């Protein structure tokens, strides 16, 4: 218990240090606008990968419409802040919550037909849902700007709020996974029939995970909208959903830290190596196939990176954080 407290304190300290280092670097212009943009994109992708991992990794359901939920969040929040007369901060907070709720509601609407069916249908239904959402956004161009895009969204997102919202997202999903509900979700992944026979309500838990995942995708979408200030419905197509899936698979299905590392790497790499961007998807697809053939649980599997383990390594003794409950 004492160890646990020390561990939490250490994590909080580490986060604060990371935060202030970045704030210092940004304010001293060491990180210029271009790199700051990459940083924002990384954090938004981390949120998306972590929330997708809840459904794909922990619940074991392949969904291909995550970009659609993100789009709902982005458009709902942008529509709100554009007309809102409230003070900036208040209107941004309300917009974020609205974005999450709207995306979660869409998640429920899609989830009810999808989750009654077996695994494979969910992939197709969520994919279709993503396309429907994009189609509706383009169709209602009076409000959304259609395929010309939505412009002049106030730029409320900055490093600080995106950083802390990302941390909250990770924390909430981490807590869910390590709670009673999370264990039920994992049990469904391991064996649906066995889970049902010990009294887990499969449909409810699937909807629950689906809903939470959509909520955070919506929030990520809202942050994206208020960072980019310009929304193009074609940003949220099937390929973006696939890219999120690639992050989850590379990071390990069922490993939150894996998703974070993968989202970081896969977002930063193409920005740094611009020549690489043409061959990016080719390489990813080959890696995807190879990973599935040889290590189907993803690159890092369900293994979580542990800072304590690294610390233990330096001290030259075995780390005590073998339990699944520890990060």
């Amino acid at each position, binding site marked *: 218990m004492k160890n646990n407290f020390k561990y939490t304190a250490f994590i909080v300290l580490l986060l604060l240090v990371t935060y202030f280092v970045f704030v210092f670097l940004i304010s001293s212009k060491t990180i210029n606008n271009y790199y700051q943009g990459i940083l924002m994109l990384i954090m938004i992708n981390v949120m998306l990968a972590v929330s997708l991992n809840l459904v794909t990794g922990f619940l074991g359901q*392949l969904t291909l419409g995550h970009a659609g939920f993100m789009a709902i969040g982005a458009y709902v929040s942008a529509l709100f802040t554009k007309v809102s007369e409230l003070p900036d901060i208040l209107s941004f907070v309300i917009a974020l919550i609205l974005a999450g709720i709207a995306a979660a509601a869409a998640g429920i609407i899609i989830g009810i037909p999808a989750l009654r069916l077996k695994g494979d*249908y969910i992939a*197709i239904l969520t994919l279709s849902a993503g396309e429907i959402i994009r189609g509706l956004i383009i169709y209602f161009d009076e409000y959304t700007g259609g395929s010309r895009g939505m412009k002049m969204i106030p730029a409320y997102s900055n490093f600080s709020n995106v950083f802390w919202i990302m941390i909250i997202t990770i924390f909430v999903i981490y807590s869910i996974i390590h709670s009673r509900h999370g264990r039920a979700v994992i049990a469904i992944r391991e064996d649906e029939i066995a889970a049902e026979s010990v009294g887990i309500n499969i449909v409810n838990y699937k909807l629950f995970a689906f809903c939470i995942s959509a909520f955070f995708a919506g929030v990520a979408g809202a942050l994206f909208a208020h960072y980019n200030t310009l929304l193009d419905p074609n940003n949220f197509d099937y390929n973006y959903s696939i890219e999120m*899936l690639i992050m989850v698979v590379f990071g390990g*299905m069922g490993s939150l830290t894996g998703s974070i590392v993968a989202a970081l790497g896969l977002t930063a790499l193409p920005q740094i190596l611009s020549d690489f961007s043409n*061959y990016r998807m*080719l390489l990813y697809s080959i890696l995807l196939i190879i990973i599935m*053939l040889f290590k189907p649980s993803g690159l890092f599997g369900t293994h979580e990176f542990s800072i304590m383990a690294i610390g233990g390594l330096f001290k030259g003794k075995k780390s005590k954080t073998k339990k699944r409950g520890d990060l």
Partner: protein
Amino acid sequence: MNFIQQLINGLSIGSVYALVALGYTMVYGIVKLINFAHGDIIMVGSYIVLFSMKSAGFPFWISILGAFTLCAILGVVIERVAYKPLRQAPRISALITAIGVSILIQNVFMLSFKPDPRPFPNVIDGNFGIGSINVSYTTALTIGISVLLMILLQLIVKKTKVGKAMRAVSEDEGAASLMGINVNRTISITFAIGSGLAAVGGALYSAAYPLVDPFMGAMFGLKAFVAAVIGGIGSIPGAILGGLIMGIAESMTKAYISSQLTDIIVFGILIVVLLVKPSGIMGKNVKEKV
């Protein structure tokens, strides 16, 4: 009259959907896998026909036969390399592999032939009239070839030994292999036939909408899969029915509502069908065994 005209257009595109949906439904019936790469085989088929007509100067008939053969081989290779090792793995791994194969094919074609759409050569010009309705020869050809192939497929599945083996494997793989059926060979044949049909579907689609690009298969394949699900996955008449429903719904929406709404309506039909009858219109409801 316009209504009948639209109906014929719908039947034409619907029969192409049906051809592609047949491949999905056969593969799903036998290995329980959504073959995401199936859509891209359509695109490969179109490219093969395009090159064989334009560069090699072969007639349409020979080109289609060539596309059928090459895509059948491609389908078998994909199955052997990517899907066979995962037959016992969790479903999600096989699905992700299928997505990987799909992206791989798209990107190989994009890098080799540039992403810009290429014009597809004209197959046959002209049209003929029945009463006051104009039917282009391309439409008639599309419907004709599709119906012919569907009848042929039905004969293969119902009357031949190979077809019997396919039905046996899709019912119970273990029992089939105990009865002396070569399961691997049967699965390969299924992939070959399915991929070949997709190639023909691609060629016919390109004859109607004469632009070919590396990403044309993704959306088309998705819609064909939706057709297979609507009809009831695993059922051959279901796939044909689903394809025709999709085609007619699409052309009617384009004509009477709005062309922007076609995708929304098509996917909307899917959601409605799955809500009302989750196994599809002609699908059987299979109870899960422990």
